[in-house]
C-alpha cells in the first residue's frame, strides 16, 4: 500500500484541467515538473492534451498498470470516479475535491456515499478535502501546493490542508526536509492511525510529525501509536486544547476532565510527544530527525556571554535536567587554550572576544567528556566571531551526542541558522527552545528504554457488580445509591468505611453505638447526589444525642431543599481519622474510553484543579505516575514531620477502579471523594462513593 501511494509506477489525475490556477491543472503540473519518473495520465471528458500529455476522456479508457489515482472533480462526481478507478484496478486514491462534510447538508450525504464507494470497492483513500501527498524520494508531488518539499527525514501529516501549505512554505525557507507529506483531509478512509503505520514502515522517515484536530478512533490510535513509538518517535500538535467544558457533569471527574485531558493522557501513555505549538513541533521533529538521542539529562553549555548562558542553565534546570559536572581532564583541556578570564566550568563561557575556532575547539572538548549527554552552543553576535564560520564548525563536530545551536539575534545570524538546519543541526533564536527540544528527546529516550507497559487488571467479584447493575437497569435507574456504589468498589477490593443505614433518629443513635463514636452521618436519598451541597453530611458526631439531633436536622433540611425527594433515612458511618483526603474518579471519554483521575481532595480539586489523568486500563506504572504526577504530591509525601501517605495503597485503588471500569464499560462516571489515604502501611478508605451508568444501549 505504501508503495502504491508514494512510489507509484503510474498516476491518473481524474479532473485534470487545462487552465492554470485550477486545482486539476496544478496537480498535473506538479506531477510533471519535479523529479517523479513514473507515467502520468490526465483524465477529462474534453480530451485533447494538457502540458503535452494526452488526455483520456474517461477512466475506462486508461491503460492498465496505474496504481495511484488523484481525483479533483466536483464533489458529486467523486463517488463514481472512485468506483471507476477501482474498476481499472487503481486501489490507492487521493481525493482533493472539497464539498463534503465540511460544508454540511448535502456534503454530508456525499461523504456517506463516498465512504460507501470505498467500502464496496476496497480501495484505500486519502481525503477528501485535502491538498494531496508528496514523496521527496520518488519526487512525487500529487498536491496543488506551490512548491515541492525539500528531501529529509520527517514524515509529516496534517488534518488541515491550510496548515500543510503554511508549514511547507516555512520549511522551505528554513531548510527543513521531509520524507513524506500527507494531507489527511476529512479522513473518510485513511486516518491518522493508518498514516502512523504507513510512516512507521517507511525507511526514509526517521520521525513522524503531525497536526491533529481530532482522533477518529482513540483506542486504535493508542494501540498503533504504542507500537510505532517503540522504534520511531511521533511528535504531534493537537489543537482545540482549551475547552469551555460547559457540561454540568454530575461528578467531579466529569467536570474536570475536559476534552484535552484524555488526549494528553493518551499521548503520554503511548509515547507520543506532544508539542504545544507548531514551532515546538518543528523544533522537536527536526532534532529527532537529525540528532542522536541524549543518553541522560546532563547538559553542557558552551557560550560566548554570561547572560544567555545563565538563562539556558535555568531553562535546563526548569526542564528537569541538569548541568553536567565536567571531568577534571576536560576542565584542564579547556584551560589550556581558553583565555584566563573564561569560565572553564559548565556553562563554559568563552567570553565575548572568542573567535569561531575557539568555539569549535571547546565544543569538541566538551563533547568528549563522558559526563556530558548533550551540548547546547550559544552565540551572541559579537564582532569577533564570524557566525557562518561558527555554524560550519558546529556542523563539523563528530560526536554521538546531540548538539544544538542557539544563534541569538536575527540580522547577522539568520543565514548561519539556516545553514545549521540544512546540515541537520537544530538551530534556534533563543536557548530556551533548544532546551525544550532536548527535553522532548530525553522523554522519548526514556520511553524507548522503559519496558512496555501491560494493563494490570484485578479480578473483582464481577457477579456482585453485574447483579447491582442488573437491578438498576431493571428499575430504569442510572444513579447508584451510595450503598450500591460502595458494594461495587468493595467487590473490587477497594476498602470502604463501614456504615449502617438508619431510618429514624433512634436507629441512627443505635447504629452509632454499634460502629463506635464519633461517627459521620450522610443523607440517604436517591435524589441527592451531592450530599454536602445540601447539608447532607455531618462529621464528628460524638454522642447519641448529637446523632439523633443531626438525623432530624439533616432530614428536615433535605426535605425542604428537595420537597419531592424520597428520603430513605441516613447512613451512619465510622469516622476514619488521620488520613489525607484524595479523590479517585472515572469518566468516559468519547474518543479514548475510560479516563481515570486522581487528585488531592477538597480545595486542591475544587479550586486548583490539581489532578492527573490516564486512559484505562491502567498499568501499574500508570497508577504510580498518577499518584506522583499531581503538583501537590509533596503533601502526600508528608511535610513538617507528617508521615507519608500510603501511596502504594492509592495506586492499588486506582488499579482496582481501572479494573472495574474495564469489566463494566457501562459505568459512565464514578467518584470516590474523599478517599482517605492513611499513613504508609495503613492503607486507604473510601469514605464517599458515587457511580452512575450510561443509558442502556443494545446488549448491555
Amino acid at each position, binding site marked *: 500500500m505504501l508503495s502504491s501511494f508514494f512510489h507509484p509506477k503510474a498516476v491518473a489525475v481524474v479532473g485534470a484541467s487545462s487552465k492554470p490556477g485550477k486545482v486539476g491543472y496544478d496537480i498535473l503540473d506538479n506531477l510533471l515538473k519535479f523529479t517523479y519518473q513514473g507515467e502520468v495520465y490526465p483524465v477529462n471528458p474534453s480530451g485533447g492534451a494538457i502540458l503535452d500529455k494526452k488526455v483520456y476522456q474517461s477512466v475506462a479508457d486508461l491503460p492498465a498498470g496505474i496504481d495511484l489515482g488523484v481525483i479533483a472533480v466536483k464533489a458529486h462526481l467523486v463517488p463514481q470516479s472512485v468506483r471507476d478507478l477501482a474498476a481499472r484496478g487503481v486501489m490507492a486514491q487521493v481525493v482533493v475535491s472539497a464539498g463534503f462534510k465540511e460544508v454540511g447538508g448535502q456534503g454530508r450525504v456525499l461523504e456517506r456515499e463516498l465512504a460507501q464507494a470505498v467500502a464496496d470497492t476496497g480501495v484505500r483513500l486519502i481525503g477528501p478535502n485535502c491538498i494531496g501527498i508528496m514523496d521527496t524520494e520518488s519526487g512525487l508531488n500529487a498536491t496543488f501546493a506551490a512548491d515541492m518539499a525539500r528531501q529529509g527525514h520527517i514524515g509529516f501529516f496534517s488534518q488541515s490542508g491550510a496548515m500543510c501549505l503554511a508549514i511547507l512554505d516555512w520549511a522551505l525557507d528554513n531548510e527543513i526536509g521531509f520524507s513524506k507529506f500527507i494531507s489527511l483531509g476529512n479522513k473518510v478512509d485513511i486516518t491518522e492511525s493508518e498514516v502512523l503505520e504507513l510512516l512507521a514502515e517507511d525507511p526514509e522517515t526517521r520521525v513522524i510529525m503531525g497536526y491533529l484536530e481530532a482522533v477518529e478512533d482513540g483506542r486504535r490510535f493508542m494501540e498503533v501509536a504504542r507500537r510505532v513509538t517503540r522504534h520511531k518517535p511521533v511528535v504531534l500538535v493537537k489543537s482545540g486544547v482549551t475547552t469551555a467544558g460547559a457540561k*454540568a457533569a454530575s461528578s467531579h471527574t466529569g*467536570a474536570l476532565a475536559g476534552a484535552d485531558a484524555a488526549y494528553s493522557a493518551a499521548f503520554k501513555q503511548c509515547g507520543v510527544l506532544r508539542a504545544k505549538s507548531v514551532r515546538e513541533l518543528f523544533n522537536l521533529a527536526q532534532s529527532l530527525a537529525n540528532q542522536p538521542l541524549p543518553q541522560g539529562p546532563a547538559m553542557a553549555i558552551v557560550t560566548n556571554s554570561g547572560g544567555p548562558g545563565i538563562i539556558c542553565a535555568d531553562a535546563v534546570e526548569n526542564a528537569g535536567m541538569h548541568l553536567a559536572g565536567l571531568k577534571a581532564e576536560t576542565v584542564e583541556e579547556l584551560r589550556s587554550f581558553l583565555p584566563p578570564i573564561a569560565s572553564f566550568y559548565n556553562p563554559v563561557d568563552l567570553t565575548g572576544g572568542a573567535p569561531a575556532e575557539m568555539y569549535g575547539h571547546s565544543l569538541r572538548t566538551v563533547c568528549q567528556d563522558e559526563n556530558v549527554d548533550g551540548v547546547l552552543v550559544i552565540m551572541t553576535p559579537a564582532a569577533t566571531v564570524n557566525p557562518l564560520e561558527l555554524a560550519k564548525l558546529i556542523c563539523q563536530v563528530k560526536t554521538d551526542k546531540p548538539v544544538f545551536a542557539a544563534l541569538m539575534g536575527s540580522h547577522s545570524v539568520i543565514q548561519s541558522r539556516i545553514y545549521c538546519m540544512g546540515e541537520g543541526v537544530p538551530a534556534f533564536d533563543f536557548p530556551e527552545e533548544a532546551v525544550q527540544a532536548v527535553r522532548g528527546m530525553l522523554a522519548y529516550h526514556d520511553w524507548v528504554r522503559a519496558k512496555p507497559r501491560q494493563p494490570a487488571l484485578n479480578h473483582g467479584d464481577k457477579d456482585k457488580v453485574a447483579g447491582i447493575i442488573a437491578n438498576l437497569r431493571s428499575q430504569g435507574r442510572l444513579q447508584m445509591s451510595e450503598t450500591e456504589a460502595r458494594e461495587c468498589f468493595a467487590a473490587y477490593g477497594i476498602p470502604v468505611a463501614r456504615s449502617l443505614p438508619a*431510618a*429514624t433518629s433512634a436507629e441512627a443513635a443505635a447504629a452509632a453505638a454499634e460502629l463506635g463514636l464519633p461517627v459521620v452521618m450522610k443523607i440517604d436519598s436517591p435524589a441527592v447526589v451531592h450530599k454536602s451541597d445540601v447539608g447532607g453530611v455531618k462529621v464528628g458526631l460524638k454522642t447519641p444525642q448529637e446523632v439523633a439531633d443531626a438525623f*432530624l436536622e439533616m432530614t428536615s433540611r433535605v426535605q425542604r*431543599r428537595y420537597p419531592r425527594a424520597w428520603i430513605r433515612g441516613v447512613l451512619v458511618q465510622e469516622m476514619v481519622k488521620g488520613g489525607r483526603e484524595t479523590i479517585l474518579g472515572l469518566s468516559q471519554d468519547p474518543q479514548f474510553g475510560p479516563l481515570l483521575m486522581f487528585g488531592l481532595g477538597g480545595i486542591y480539586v475544587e479550586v486548583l484543579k490539581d489532578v492527573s489523568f490516564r486512559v484505562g486500563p491502567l498499568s501499574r506504572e500508570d497508577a504510580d505516575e498518577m499518584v506522583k504526577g499531581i503538583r501537590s504530591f509533596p503533601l502526600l509525601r508528608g511535610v513538617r514531620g507528617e508521615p507519608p501517605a500510603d501511596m502504594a495503597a492509592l495506586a492499588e485503588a486506582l488499579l482496582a477502579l481501572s479494573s472495574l471500569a474495564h469489566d463494566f464499560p457501562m459505568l459512565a462516571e464514578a467518584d470516590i471523594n474523599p478517599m482517605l489515604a492513611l499513613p504508609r502501611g495503613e492503607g486507604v478508605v473510601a469514605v464517599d462513593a458515587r457511580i452512575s451508568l450510561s443509558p442502556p444501549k443494545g446488549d448491555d
Partner: protein
Amino acid sequence: MVMIFLGSVRAYAGKNVMALGLGRRLLDDGYSLAFCKPYGSNPLKVGDAYTDGDAWQISQALGLDQSPADCCAVLRTQDLVSQALRGQDDGLMDKALAHCQKMAQGKDVLLLSGAGTLRSGAMFHLTGYELVLKLGAKVIIVEPYENEFFLDDLLSAAHRLREVMAGVVINKVDQDMNEALDEQVKPFLQKHGVTCFGRLAKDELLASVTVQELSDALGAKPVCCFKQMDRLVKRFLIGAMQVGSAQHFFGSQRDFGCIVGGDRPDMQMAALEGGAACLILTGNFYPNDLILSKAEENEIPVLVVRNDTYSVARSLEVVRTRGSLRGPKKIQKAIDLVYEGVDFKAIYESVGLPPK
C-alpha cells in the same frame, strides 16, 4: 371560645400571611389568642425542642406567650414518616386534639393553621378535614387566584366541610383581575353558599427571597460579598443571550437575580453592570478575578451552583412559591395586605365571635 382553622386546597396558598394578618387583627380587637399548627411539616429546632418553623415564627411575630412545643402538636419529622411507613403511628389524632383543647383553654380564639393542604397528613390519619370536623373549628380557606379552575377545588372542599366552612380569602390577586373577581367570582361563590371574605393583592416583596435563602435553597456556594447575603431578589432573569442584547434585556430592571453560565464572563459582567442583586453561576464554574472584583465593588453577591441553568431555573420556581416570611418588613407587609383586603367583620360574624 372559637376555633378558626386556616386551610387550603393547594400548598403554599398564603395561610401564613393570613394567620399573621388575622392574628394581629384579633389581638388588636382585644381578643385573647392562641395559635398553633395541629400538624406541622416544617421542622425547626428551637432551643432543645423541635417545632414547626412557620408556626413558631408567626407566634413570635404576634408576640404570643407560647413555648416552641405549644406551636405544633404533631410534627412531621423523618422519624414520624418512618414510623408511619412501618405502621407505628397510632394516637396522633388524639394527640393533636388534646393539644388544641389545651391551647384553647382560657382564650377567646384558638387560631389554627394547616400544613400543606386540607388533605395533608393523611398518611398519619391526621388530615385537616378530619381534624376540623372533630374539633368543630370553623374553616377559612385561603386560595391563590389562578384561573377559573381553582373554583373546582374550592367548591369540592366547601362541599366536604359543609357547616364548618366559614368562607374563603383569595390570595395573589393581580390588579387587573379585581374586576372579574367582583363581577363574576364572588357572586358565583355566594350562589354556592361560599362567602368570600376578601382578597390579598399579589405582592412583589412577599414573593422576594434573600440571597441567603436562595443560596440555601439551591445548595450554592457564595463566593463573595458575604455581608450582602440579606439582599432581596425580586425576580430572576436568565443571561443566555449575546452581550449586545443584554442591555436591552435587563432594561430598567432592578433587584433581579441573574442566572448565567459560569463560563460566560461577558454576560456576568453585563449583569453586574445592569442592576443585578446577585449572580447565580451555573455549571460549577468559579468566576474570574475581574468578575469577583467588580462584584465586590458593586456589593453584588455571587453564588456558584453545580447544576445547569435550566435546572436552576426550575428549582427557583419552587423557591419562589414557598416565599418565606422572614424579616420585619415582610411580616409588616403581610399584615398590611390582610388589613387592606379582608372583611374582618364578616369573618367574626361567620365564625360566631361576639364583639368586644
